[in-house]
Each structure stands twice: as C-alpha cells, then as structure tokens.
C-alpha cells in the first residue's frame, strides 16, 4: 500500500480513536484501559509475519520471543478485562432488574 493511503488511514483512525472513548465515565476507566491494552497485543500479527520469514536461527529466536510476548499481551489482556467486567455484570443484574430486556436493545 502506498504511503499516502496509509497516512489517510492513520489520520482517520486517530479521529475514530478520539471519538469512541470521548464520553466514558470514570467507573469504566480501568476496564477500558485494560481492553485497549489487549487490543495492541495484535502486534502478534506482526510478530508472526516476522517469525514466518526468519531464515537465520537467531532471527527466529528473537521473533519467537516477540510472538510469545505479544501473545501474553493479547490473551492475558482480554482475559483480565473480562474478569473485571464480569463483576460489573453481576452488579448490573442487581441494579437493572426492572428493565432486563431493554438494556440490550441499543
């Protein structure tokens, strides 16, 4: 892909990133940070590509280290976020008893 298209995509992604989290309550700061943290674990895709092209054993070793670290970021990040949010879910069940169906409507 040429540089200009990548730049366009990058700039648009900046604005999307600003927009999607602009109205988050302080209650959700921690899970949101943790979820965003998991998403950048997608560097795993890059690590896999590099490891898959490695010919030299040393290069492969470093690339595999990157794969392992990226996997830890990705998998651990999503699991710990889910655990945090599981507790919110339990609390919601108490708080939103009156409108259980409507809550999913949006």
């Amino acid at each position, binding site marked *: 892909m040429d540089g200009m298209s990548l730049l366009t995509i990058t700039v648009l992604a*900046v604005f999307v990133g600003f927009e999607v989290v602009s109205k988050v309550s302080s209650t959700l700061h921690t899970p949101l940070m943790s979820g965003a943290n998991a998403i950048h674990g997608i560097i795993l895709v890059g690590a896999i590509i590099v490891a898959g092209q490695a010919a030299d054993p040393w290069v492969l070793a470093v690339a595999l280290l990157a794969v392992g670290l990226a996997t830890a970021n990705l998998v651990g990040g999503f699991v710990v976020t889910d655990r945090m949010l599981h507790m919110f879910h339990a609390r919601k069940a108490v708080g939103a008893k009156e409108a259980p169906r409507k809550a999913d409507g949006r």
Partner: protein
Amino acid sequence: MSLLDPVWTSLLYLVAAVFFILALRGLSSPRTARRGNLIGAAGALIAVLTVFLSSRLENIPWILAAIAVGSAVAAPVARRVKMTQMPQLVALFNGVGGGAAALVALLELSHTGDPWVRLAIVFTLLVGAVSFAGSGVTFAKLQELMTTRPVVFPGLPAVMAAVLLAAVAAAAVVVFTGSLPLASLLLVLGLAAGILLVLPVGGADVPIVISLLNAFTGLAVAASGLVLGNVLLVVAGTLVGASGTILTRAMAAAMGRSVAGILFGAFRGGSTAGSTAVSERPVRSSSAEDVAVLLGYAQRVIIVPGYGLAVAQGQHTAAELALALESRGIEVDFAIHPVAGRMPGHMNVLLAEANVPYESLKEMGEINPEFKTADVALVVGANDVVNPAAKTSAGSPIYGMPILEVADARQVVFLKRSMRPGFAGIENDLLYEPQTSLLFGDAKDSLAQVLGAVKAL
C-alpha cells in the same frame, strides 16, 4: 503457500479493525462493556487466523509453540490474579506488548532500504522500549518491589536530556545507514529513557502513567504496521494510541492533575514537598466497642473504602457491617472516590465483587454535600483520597486532587493499619483533628471486630 488471495486478506483485516472499533465503543458504556471486550477478542482471533492463512510462513510449528507458551503463561495469571493486583498486571501486559513491537521493528531493519520505513522502525524501537522499561518500573512500584515515593537524584534532568539526545543521534544514523548495532544501542537508550521517565513519578500517579504507556505501545504498534505495510496493525495501534491519550487525560482530570505535571513535577522538585514532615502529634485511638457504639447509635453513616480495605480482602465484611447497621434503621452509603483503590474505577470493581448493591455506591460529586448530615464517616483503609492537604497545602503532591469531604461529618473514624502515610507518602492532618478517632489493625480484622460489637449492642 497462501490459501487466501490478497483481497480476502484485506477484507478480513478490515473486519477485525471494525471489531476493534466496536470493542472500544462497547467498553465505554457499562451496559455493553463485557460484550465489547468479547468482540475485541473475536477481532483478534480473526486477525491471527488470517495471517496464518494468507502469508507464506515458514517455521509454523515454532510459531504455534511460542503462541502456546505465551497463552499458557498469561491466561492462568490473568485468571487467578487478585483484583487488587490487577493494575500491575495490566502494566506488565502493556510492557510485553511494547517489547514485542520493538523486537519486530529491530528484525525488520535488514529487510528495507527505504529511509521512511527506517524512520518508522526507529520510532517503534524507541517508543516500544520506553513502554517496556517504563511498564517494568510501574510494575515494581505497584507491587511495592521498590519505593512508591518519587525517585529523584540531582542530575536526573541532565541524564534524561543526554539519553534523549543520544537516542535522537543514534536514530538519525540508523535512518540513513540502517546500522543494526546502532539500532540495538537505540533499543538500550529507549529502555533507559523508560526507566528515567517513570522513576520520578509518585505512587499515586502511577495508574495515569500506565495509561500513558498504554497509548505509547499503541503508537509503537501503529508504527510497526507502517514498517510491515500491514493496515490492521496501523489501525489498531492508532486506535489505542488515540483513545489511550484521551483516557490518560480523563484519568488525570479525575485526579485534578495534569499529565505534564505528573511526568515532570518531580523534576522541578515540587512532588517531594510535604512528604518528609513526620509528625509526633498525639492521636486518639479507640477500641472496636467504642466504634460500634458510635456507629450503632448514629442515624447516618458513610463508609469510605480505600485500597487498604481491598488489600485486606475486607469488602465482604464491610458489606456485612453495612447490612447490620441498616437493620438497626441506620442509613448507610459507600462513598467512592474516582481513584479509590489504585486506578480510576478500581474500587467499583472490588465492591461489585463483594455484591454491595449498586444503589449504595455513591460517587464523589453526589456524596460530598451529604457528609455534613452524616453522624459518622468510617474511613476504611483510605488515606490520600480524604486528605485535606489536597485542598490546603500547595506544595503537596496531591494538591488539587478533589477529595471526599469526610471532615464535614460529625465524627470521623479511621480504620488504619498503622500511622504510615498513604500511597502518595503524605501526612494526613485529619488524623489529628479532635473529631477523629483511630482503630489500628488490619482492615478486615477491625471490621469483623466492629461488626461483632455492633451485633452485641
């Protein structure tokens, strides 16, 4: 060989990118947060399957083994970690992600002759290394492997400037020559810069630094996407970089701080003020029975839970005490400071875990005017979030942070482990006020004793 043609690959990456956007949006609202996280995980799964199907990869067994090892280490830790230790785990995961991005960039250096790509490589190297080392230091601070006080030494600004200058010089040479040894040096300089960046940050501000480093890792991942020409990495990394920046500012605002003040406050020497004044003034210590009488004959009690409660795993006992008081006709609320615990929203998670009903958790803005009508404010394992120094002492590291106005209550009871100052390392004048009494001990034990005494009334 590749099973997918490039169009399908691009389409699947697009789907994954959309999933990530939906995940972040979902995570911004309590109703959709959990689903949002699962959507994010699904997006990640799609992306990883796509890369296996679309690229010509060697060494697949090795790669799968590395993925298995990474998952086998991270998933059980994430599943078993105590919720109180969750902030440092997030820091750790963030750090290894930054490290992975830096390693990917380092290995790509020999594959390119384009100076623009090399520019993206040096950026990834530097920012990834800063994030890795900085997260390591935040982990050490939160785990209390090292002091939580700001660490400053006289030449720190000069050393930092020297490291950054050297890094810029090394980066420039790498961009023009592609030198691998200098790229490795750049990695080391990035690690040094990360350590120097976080050392002067005080314990209470560490969560904001985690969020900032999270945004850094996002930017490093985006830059590595430019290096590899992979649109998904560009989009996902940029999303995290941008949303992480907003989130960092929101967190800092919740604590009444500016991000620049947190990072560079200690450089100016402001952040250590007030922390050395250890007082010998007398305090009024009290027994569990005395506290029970105060609580049991009150009309309105506000409980202020803090990190000490969480560490002692006393949430359930606190919930029971609230129930026992309510059965005596006493109105009980929990006052939640936005940064109670170690991170914004952390205390909500911990109390939700203890099944404290949603309605009795009151946010700071809502509860602060009500302290005037409260007979007793029961502060359990909290200190900095009720410290009037945030309002009165301009040199204090927490100056400007909004606090819970417990001093307005008729009586204030602190359940504290010791007279040791809180995480920010500052003396709390409220402890010496005439309306304040203290019950020393582990938060959970103290609560259990008070609970027993209340039931015996």
